[in-house]
């Protein structure tokens, strides 16, 4: 069977929705970061899929996906560093407790 662009877009959308759900509902900061990764992966799948099916002759989407992955890696590194800093400070990393900026 031939897999079309819609399948990839569906997969990406599902992954994005999963990630979004995770971001909005998880308490643990690490879980939220993982969900963010899911969303980023969904975006990368979209990029690669669009590149493959819409502009097969150029590799723009590929490269952009690679950049995006590197970016995600850096982002995760930074995010984990923040989590560690928060954990060091208050001995937990639940995002619901980080509410010092309440108005």
């Amino acid at each position, binding site marked *: 069977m031939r897999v079309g662009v819609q399948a990839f877009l569906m997969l990406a959308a599902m992954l994005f929705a999963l990630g*979004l759900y995770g*971001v*909005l*509902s998880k308490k643990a900061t690490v879980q939220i970061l993982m969900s963010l990764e899911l969303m980023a992966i969904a975006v990368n799948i979209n990029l690669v899929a669009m590149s493959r099916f819409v502009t097969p002759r150029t590799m723009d989407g590929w490269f952009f996906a690679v950049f995006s992955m590197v970016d995600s890696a850096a982002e995760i590194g930074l995010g984990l560093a923040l989590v560690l800093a928060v954990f060091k400070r208050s001995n937990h990393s639940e*995002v*619901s407790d*980080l*509410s*010092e*900026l*309440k*108005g």
Partner: protein
Amino acid sequence: MNWLVAIPLLPAIAFVGLIFLPRTWRNRTLWLPVGAMFGSLALSFVAFARVWPGGDALTSVRWDHPWMLGVIAGHPISLSLQMDAITAVMLVVISFVGTCVQVYSLAYMSKDEREGWYFAVLSLFTSAMLTLVLADNLLLVFAMWEMMGLCSYLLIGFWYELEAPRRASQKAFLTTRVGDLGFLFALAVIYVQPQHTWDITLVLGSVHSWAPGVATAVACGLLLAAMGKSAQVPLHVWLPDAMAGPTPASALIHAATMVAAGVYLVARTIDIFRAAPAVLMATLIIGAITALVGGVLACVQHDVKKVLAYSTISQLGLMFMALGAGSVMGAMFHLVTHAFFKSLLFLGAGVIIHSAHTQDMREMGGLRKHMPITWATVLIGSLALAGVVPFSGFFSKDEIISSLLAAHQYWAVAVVLLASGLTAFYMTRMYFRVFEGPEQTEHLHEGSPLMLMPMVALATITTFLGFGSVAFATFLGERGEWPAIPLVLASTAVAATGIGIGWWFYGRRSVVVNTQAYKRLFRPVYRALQEKLYFDHMYDRVFIWPYMALANVLAVFDRSAIDGVVNGVAKGWMLFSDSAAAFDRLIIDGAVNGLATLTKKTGTLLRSLQTGKLQGYQRLVLSAVVLFMLYLVIYVVVKGA
């Protein structure tokens, strides 16, 4: 520069020198004014000697500097000094009496802490009078006239801590000021004449070319001025009150300066008066009234200085009568003799007051034994004033009578004789009250030598001056004669009668006349005399009361109308500002506060969004994105459809 300038300039320099010194130094530099006066006196004698053979002007000192003095309507004003026989006589009299008064004052005022100021004003006063007689220009005369008004004000009010001198000085200043209006009027009329000058020689020379009535107007103005300065009825009221000043200053005012200025002015401008016979007649009548009023009022005064003051008024009246008869010689000679014996009497009164510590004659008596020199000199002065034969007053009074006879004013002769009789009476009264009778005060003592020396000098002159009457007349360019025998007998009889009545009332040892009984007998007359013939009351009623009433009305008007308007405006303004404040509070502040409240409410509302929960924000963002996408989809669908 002519040396004549130095005569008035020396005392003026003394004045300027004194006023810039601090008070203590001023009191220690009294040699300056006295020395200046002696200098003036010496120069006056020199000037007199230069004019002596008689007649015309000796020198003219002119300053023709129009750029200095100003130009009126294209005609430059030049001031000048001139010197003729009348001036020479006046110079000697003024500087002599001035010197006597200053020497006397050295002792009289020695205990006063403002002695230096007194001497400064005295110098300025003398200087002004000397300039006045030297001036050949009516403008300069007027300036000096006013200067003397100021000096008399300062001297009369010298003890300004006391109520009476203060009021007296104001009265003198204001009363003479009424006369000054006449002077100003005359000056204006003279200046609009074709020759446009105030130069006395030119003015007198052009009198005959004046339009009819002009001479009368000018003479009226000058007469009014002279009446104010020389204390003629009805402007005489200031002179008795002026006794509130220091006694030597009174001597100066009554003899050499001030009151002599009026007589001098009329004598100087007699040609204008001759061109206006009606005014000349008015001068005679005013002089007659003044002579009688002054003489009568002098009879009822108890204050020794006031007796002398009213006697001065009376004698000035005699001088005006002589002027009214057109006799400059008669007026001037009486002015001169009067200057000497009246200053002598005032200086004597000063010694008496110093010794008896009172001015009231009723509290004096028996002073003869304690102060022989004062007694002798005052007696000479009194006899001269009363017109007793060998003394100077006799000759000058006879001169006046002769001139009146020559003018055929026989009623005026009667007035002069009556006034002489009155003079003899009140001087006898004063003499007996002060020097004879029982002693009433203790510690009587003679005056100091500094006070007695000037008096002796004046008494000597008073004794012998009368014999110079013929020489005096020749000097003034008139023909002098010795008094006729019937005239001598008549005036001597009058004087003797006056003295006799005075003796009968006050002098007899054996019988003491009960004067109270006579006072009761002539009660209405006596009352009128005591009230100074109601002149002051009249001025009160005619001028002061209406003035006060007007002032009260104006004050009410001021309070109700002017203040009302001002207060009304203020109230209106307050009302306006109140409403403005309300507007400010309600509208402006309301807007500002309302905005603030609105902002605050909005802030409170919005702040509830800031939950601090990370995922809350994410949900918000998500819902916003969803809504936006929903909108996009719907938009696209609708648009697409």
